[in-house]
């Protein structure tokens, strides 16, 4: 069983829809949770990160962490065709002194005009 599970999609939505992307994980030692966006043939770029549980909002993006359920989500409001990309969740243990992120396999999102 992978430490981080993510539905690969693809997820196809019409422009303006609310998108929900999710990951589950098995290791309770994870404390930092991140979402990366990866366009085709590009490297991932950090979208948002949260520490421990709770919500964090940045413009059209909201990240949620539920540590009791070992479940994290990324919501995209008023989705745009430019949001079409692969979204990767990633996690890190607090006291790990390296930047060893554990990634999900990514969900491919397509926003139709």
């Amino acid at each position, binding site marked *: 069983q992978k430490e*981080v599970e*993510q539905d*690969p999609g693809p997820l196809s939505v019409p422009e303006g829809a609310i998108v929900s992307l999710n990951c589950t994980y098995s290791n309770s030692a994870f404390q*930092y949770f*991140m979402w990366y966006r990866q366009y085709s*043939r*590009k*490297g*991932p*770029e*950090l979208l948002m*990160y949260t*520490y421990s549980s709770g919500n964090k909002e940045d413009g059209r993006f909201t990240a949620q962490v539920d540590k009791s359920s070992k479940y994290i989500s990324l919501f995209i409001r008023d989705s745009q065709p430019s949001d079409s990309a692969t979204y*990767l969740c*990633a996690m*890190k243990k*607090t*006291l790990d*002194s*390296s*930047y*060893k*992120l*554990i*990634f*999900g*396999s*990514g969900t491919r999102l397509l926003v139709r005009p």
Partner: protein
Amino acid sequence: GAGVSQSPSNKVTEKGKDVELRCDPISGHTALYWYRQSLGQGLEFLIYFQGNSAPDKSGLPSDRFSAERTGGSVSTLTIQRTQQEDSAVYLCASSLPFSLDRVTEAFFGQGTRLTVV
């Protein structure tokens, strides 16, 4: 440019040959990471450098894989006697030194797409 630069962008090699992949990190970033992304898979951690030393090389899949970093800057990932299962996108990232009190953002290069035929 100011970003992480990787070369070559694409590499096709014959099974059994050695390959070298290069990463130029962002200036001033002392931490450097190599990841591998296979088709339909997430990023798989390979190795982490702090300066020229590699305190965590736990992700290297076999002794055919090695990496070095010189001058605290450029890094090369070498794969000896390549196998078809080595085909993947190899991504390099760099960041400021790790800190316990904040998330240290890693900036990724565009990757090297390796195909072993």
